[in-house]
């Protein structure tokens, strides 16, 4: 399955992936609207910055997903290899936050339920927004 990978040699820590991700999944029609009025939608990708190395991390869509197995409500599920969350069923217990070895489950500021990368299959973005938005080709969608 094609997954999103980040090449840390080329990540510039510009954090644009976070913004493209947040905007794409905000339901707003564009980035300006997504962030209008001081709104700060939470991205499902997270840039880690080091002194020389930076990289972004997002869901690895594991073959044996601890988050899905541990989910107490059944909100997390796997379909065609893509792990996604039915946010209407999440109660915010964060067992998945506890379980994810990559720290890729994020908590919505507003609803307090969790959000996670679903490779943009649920929005109208086409290829994942982080991949399309990365200015340096550091984020790729590929088979490995």
């Amino acid at each position, binding site marked *: 399955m094609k997954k999103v990978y980040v090449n840390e040699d080329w990540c510039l820590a510009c954090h644009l992936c976070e913004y493209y991700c947040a905007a794409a999944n905000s339901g707003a029609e564009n980035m300006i609207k997504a962030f209008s009025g001081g709104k700060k939608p939470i991205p499902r990708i997270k840039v880690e910055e080091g002194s020389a190395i930076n*990289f972004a991390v997002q869901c690895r869509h594991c073959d044996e997903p601890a988050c899905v*197995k541990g989910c107490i409500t059944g909100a997390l599920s796997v379909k065609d290899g893509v792990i996604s969350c039915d946010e209407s069923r999440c109660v915010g217990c964060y067992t998945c936050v*506890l379980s994810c070895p*990559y*720290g890729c489950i994020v908590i919505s500021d507003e609803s307090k339920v969790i959000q996670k990368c679903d490779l943009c299959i649920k929005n109208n973005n086409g290829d994942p927004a982080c991949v399309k938005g990365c200015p340096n080709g550091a984020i790729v969608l590929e088979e490995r």
Partner: protein
Amino acid sequence: MNRYVIIGNSAAAIGAIQGIRSADTEGSITVITDEPYHTYSRPLISYWLEGKVADENMYYRDKNFYTDNNVEVLYSRRAEKIGKSHVTLDGGEKLPFDKLLAATGSKPFVPPMKGLDKVKNSFTFMTWDSVKAIKKKVKKHTKVLIVGAGLIGLKAAEALYHLDADITVVDLADRILPSILDEDAGRIMQKHIESKGTKFILGTSVEEFSEKSAKLTNGDSVDFDLLIVAVGVRPNTELISQAGGKVDKGIITDDTQLTTLKNVYAAGDCTVSHDCSSDTDRILALLPNAFMQGEVAGKNMAGVEAHYVNAIPMNAIGFYGLHIITAGSYDGEAFTEQDAEKEVYKKLVFKDGLLKGYILMGDVARAGIYTSMIKERIPLADVDVELLKTRPQMMMFGRARRLEKLGGITQE
């Protein structure tokens, strides 16, 4: 064609069904449950009581789960006895099996307490039915006494808080949530809960109940309209022990979840697990644990070898909006950071060059990275400990490990 029988209808049972079906789409699966409900999530009962989760969201898997997986469910039936190749149901009916799973879970423990029989509105907090009964009795300002300041007692308290009940929690211990929090963290949580109006009476116990009042050992008495006893749970091990299977604190299994009985497996809260963080055998009554044990059991029942290892105690839970994530064992050298004002607490426990356990309160983001450190026994020598202490992050791993973990690339 294999005949699979599963006693129980919760996480371990569902895990087993998924495990069996990943390997065997043909065999027949029969589930025996003494409840009348489609599989539902027990941890959700407090949310249901609070009104946060509606009936239709109580279910652990969607409506078609059994049909889709070709499972027959015997609702409101009890398994009375396990034989060599059949289960005797209530009413004497015999259900033959080739492989059996005991996913019998646990039951509330109600210790003998003087005068308890006089209390009409006494409840435990374990099943959907129990909270349904509670809901009928609770109105605004209903006085509720909860015995037990553990996870169940406080989840019950939180739910009732949302129903504007007047809540008092009594516990023999001098702090709350002693099973998962240390004293400092417990204090922060206690303060937080108290700030919402819930009262604690700690270090004391009920000497004697009357119908609507409890006399405490410290001499005080507490009036109540409704009593919830939440002092603990006990695994349902009788079926196995009666059949001759080995039982200790819970049902004993090997790491394929096989009991000491041939063709009989067990999974979930009724079993004993090996906690790899403390290297001890104990009951890990946790939903993820139950599901994964069930899944391993299911695979083995269907003939695919699987092992359940790396189990650790872990909890992700929130009370009155303050979240905690904890995992592992707290036996070792501790690094702590706290800001009681902001209700933020962090404790990392190191031993033998490994991260053994942690408590995160308030800021729980990315806690799973710590969990993976414990489960995978990643040596501290391999990570940047300063970064580890700052916050959970992938940056603390070396480049090679990051490439492996994040990039799926293993370097020679």
